[in-house]
């Protein structure tokens, strides 16, 4: 055999040999490693107890009533804001209010009853309060923050003290005799700012 042929034959043999060693296929070496992770979202859950706070009858100008109720954070996340919306329905027993509203004479005072004292939240007439919608709504958590420096943590929180007063304005308020008001308070809780975990 001439040198060229011999060389070619040798190469071919080597190639064949290599292929046989590798099991007949070319397979890359590889390796794997695993990283496992979990992410769990928290829950935001607000409840109020009791759900009927005032059920008053036979009020006259000058009367007032104070009640306490709990705001409870039932979730796992701190509550950053609690916005209060107010719906008022009036019943004018004798149809004689003539455009004046009883809610202008009912004053509402909210306070947090925290361990070392009370923290004012707001104090205004029902008429004013019902106008506060959207971003105007009072934020009950803000007063808490001012007093404690924290968002509302999970668990039973301190009580909210509410005082309602049928203000005596020193004038004739007879038109409101026999009238009634229904007030619905809706508390909307939202989370705090995003943070590094």
């Amino acid at each position, binding site marked *: 055999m001439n040198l060229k042929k011999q060389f070619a034959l040798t190469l071919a043999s080597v190639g064949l040999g290599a292929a046989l*060693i590798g099991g007949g296929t070319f397979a890359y070496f590889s390796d*794997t*490693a695993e*990283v*496992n992770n979990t992410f769990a*979202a*928290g*829950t935001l859950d607000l409840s109020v107890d009791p759900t009927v706070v005032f059920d008053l009858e036979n009020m006259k100008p000058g009367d007032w009533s104070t009640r306490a109720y709990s705001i409870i954070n039932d979730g796992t996340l701190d509550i950053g804001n609690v916005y209060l919306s107010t719906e008022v329905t009036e019943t004018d027993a004798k149809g004689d209010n003539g455009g004046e509203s009883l809610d202008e004479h009912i004053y509402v005072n909210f306070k947090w009853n925290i361990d070392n004292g009370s923290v004012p939240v707001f104090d205004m007439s029902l008429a004013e309060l019902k106008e506060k919608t959207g971003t105007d709504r009072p934020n009950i958590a803000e007063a808490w923050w001012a007093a404690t420096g924290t968002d509302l943590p999970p668990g039973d929180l301190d009580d909210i003290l509410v005082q309602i007063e049928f203000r005596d304005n020193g004038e004739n308020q007879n038109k409101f005799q026999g009238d009634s008001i229904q007030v619905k308070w809706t508390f909307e809780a939202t989370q705090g700012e995003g943070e590094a975990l």
Partner: protein
Amino acid sequence: MNLKKRFALTLASVGLGAALVSGGTFAYFSDTAVVNNTFATGTLDLSVNPTVAFDVANLKPGDYMVRYFEITNSGTLDIQDVLMKTTYTIEDAKGDNGSEDFANYLNVEFLTSDGQVVLLNQSLAKLKQLSDSGKAPDISSLYGFMKHLPVGDSDVICMKIVFTDTGLDQNIFQGDKVNLKWTLEAHQGKGVAK
């Protein structure tokens, strides 16, 4: 005996004699030499530390977390690329997610080791999609000028995951959980002459 027969007999005797002398075989001079060879393959070995990078609870929209994990070439062969393959399962606490994917709102950023420049920025859902379609990113190419992981080298991978706050109601994700697994697949380089 005639001359022919005598000649043949002599030849046969010589042949026989020769055979007898050499033990009965014809043997060329020969010699043997042995060449010993070994072929040892190297090892391709990728290790990761820690093996649990993120273990976060009580997430809310807007929250973010920064974690590090280190990939090390503990083998004897250079690693050419490290593909990061993403799979996850989602636990929908209240079964209310519908067609929404929680992983769409977990955004993954790869940062430089000083926590600054974003090198790769994708949602977890998108990363899974890329993995499934064979386009898992090569994380060894994100850092440094050498775009692979030589023997003995380590890269620290810095990641920031943000639970995107869309500014809309995301309450369907309350209490949900994502179990995320990254499988890092290291590959050798091209064959070379040795």
